[in-house]
């Protein structure tokens, strides 16, 4: 994983901690899915996406943001939207 990806994952994990009430040390992996996390349903997913957009200063396409399979795909979407190029 590149430095940039490391940084994206770190910041995605921070948003996940806030959204899902995860403990301070929690870090996701690219393979993490909604089945791994308490309370990750379609509603909290939209709160996660809102938090991600604020964190990275991007707007994610709704249709693709809704059909993500794991955190790795979310990271790709953030990069495609131009996020993760610097500390926001």
């Amino acid at each position: 994983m590149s430095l940039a990806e490391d940084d994206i994952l770190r910041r995605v994990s921070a948003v996940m901690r806030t959204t899902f009430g995860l403990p301070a040390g929690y870090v996701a992996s690219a393979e993490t899915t909604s089945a791994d996390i308490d309370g990750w349903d379609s509603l909290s997913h939209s709160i996660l996406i809102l938090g991600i957009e604020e964190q990275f200063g991007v707007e994610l396409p709704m249709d693709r943001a809704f059909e993500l399979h794991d955190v790795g795909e979310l990271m790709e979407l953030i990069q495609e939207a131009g996020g993760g190029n610097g500390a926001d």
Partner: protein
Amino acid sequence: MHPRTIGARVAGHAKRKPHEIFCTFLSSQTAEDITFGDLFERATAYARLYQARGVRQGDIVIIILRHTPHLYYSFLGALLAGAIPSFMPFPSAKQRSDIYWHDHESLFERLRPRLVVTYEENRVAAHAYIDNFSVETLVPSASPCQPSADAAPANLSGLAASADDVACLQHSSGTTGLKKGVMLTHRAILDHTEAYSKRLSFTSDDCIVSWLPLYHDMGFIACFMTSVIEGTRLIALDPFEWVMRPQLLLEAIQRYRPSLCWLPNFAFSHIVNATQPGATFDLSSMRAFVNCSEPCKPGTFERFLKRFEGGGITRTNLHICYALAENVFAATQTTLDEAATVIRVDAKAFSAGTILPAGADKPTQDLLSCGLPLDGVSITVRGEDGTLLPPDIIGEIFVASTFLFSGYYLQQDLTDTKLHDGWYQTGDLGFMHDGELFVTGRVDDMLIVNGRNYYAHEIEYLVSEVPGVLAGRSVAIGVDDQQHDATVVVVLVECTEPIGQPDDLARFIRRRVLERLGLAIHSIVPLRSGQLVKTTSGKISRIKNKQLYIQGTLTSLGDVSATS
């Protein structure tokens, strides 16, 4: 005198005001205006198409479509052709298509639909997953305007239907194979609309905004049918876009200035939780947000009010309706120019089934009224033995009305168990207080999550089949999630020895329930054999185990979420 069929109402609007907008249809940042003239013309094109495909009067037409105006055209077209249409949900992104279609086999076996209107991807899946799939399908053409109809003139026999003919079926939520087709006549739907509009002081200036799906009675009757029958404007959003960005609803209100919106309780919370902090919206056009189809919580209203009072929302704009598909929709509704009644009661007496005024220094509970019965609706509350209960005593709610359903389609036995001398046994618990209805829960094990109904025993059955779970030794319970102000499902499971990886167990359970029911389990609590408490008759007790879970006295084998 108004025409006594729904199709004739649509024809009448098209004749009187062909260029007025019936619906502003919002999708993917585009807005399409559909006039009453367009609506009738395109519905007529569907009627013609149905007849060319051999659909006859009284045939069942099932409509399974994503957010598209063809939902309206195909439904009204079926009514114009004298057929009986019914909306049904399409598979969600997380649901497995094969399971979705296998679940429909027994339902279609019973309903024997003449035609299923669906999109190409779903049609292909039906043929791929059901052996000898024999139901005819119709895929709307890519054109947003018209299906590719032949030129034969339409025989709009539905215009001359009897008011007592069954107009359509509303399908209850729950497991697909067990869905019940609630039969509604033209008369019932029109009489309901008349009574409900009167309670809402509905006028031709009203405009409804909705993100609700049409396979649910709130989206179908309160929003779509009211607009069709009253001839008023509808602002329609895509349900999936709304879930992702609930702010879209607020933006639509600001732009189009509608006056009425129906939302389940969870939606009020979701709008507050997932709207950009600090964003402001002018919501001053709204006469009412009506909370319906889930137990309404005073705290939810307070959060909504606090967030949007700057946009012009006051307590008198927040309302409650008690509705059921078997009564077309609404049975009670709070009065729009007054704040909904909230009563503060003694919490201990309440949990024992009696309503007593709150005493000093005692735990209390606030309850929201669902309002007075509509004209033509009678409500009684009865005990387990069927005796009528006085006000302030909790029992099962029974509804009688001048627009009650005509029974479940081809299920007379089931109809007989629910309809008694004109009274419908709802399965809901509640009490009457000063003539108003308060709803408190369910008689059975139904859980209402995000506006959808699930049965605990169905979830437990799926969980039991997961490797590592002791068969028949799991409990699904609905719990309040304080962080998001929502009801979530928690599963308590006794595990087989040796105990496997709790994370794997949770993943298997979540996937299985999500793929089959489309429900995301909030958390899974693995337990050793024998930890779940049983009733005196030896069954595992949902109530007692829920109490233990809430008290935090169940010793879990390990936190199976990533929170450990």
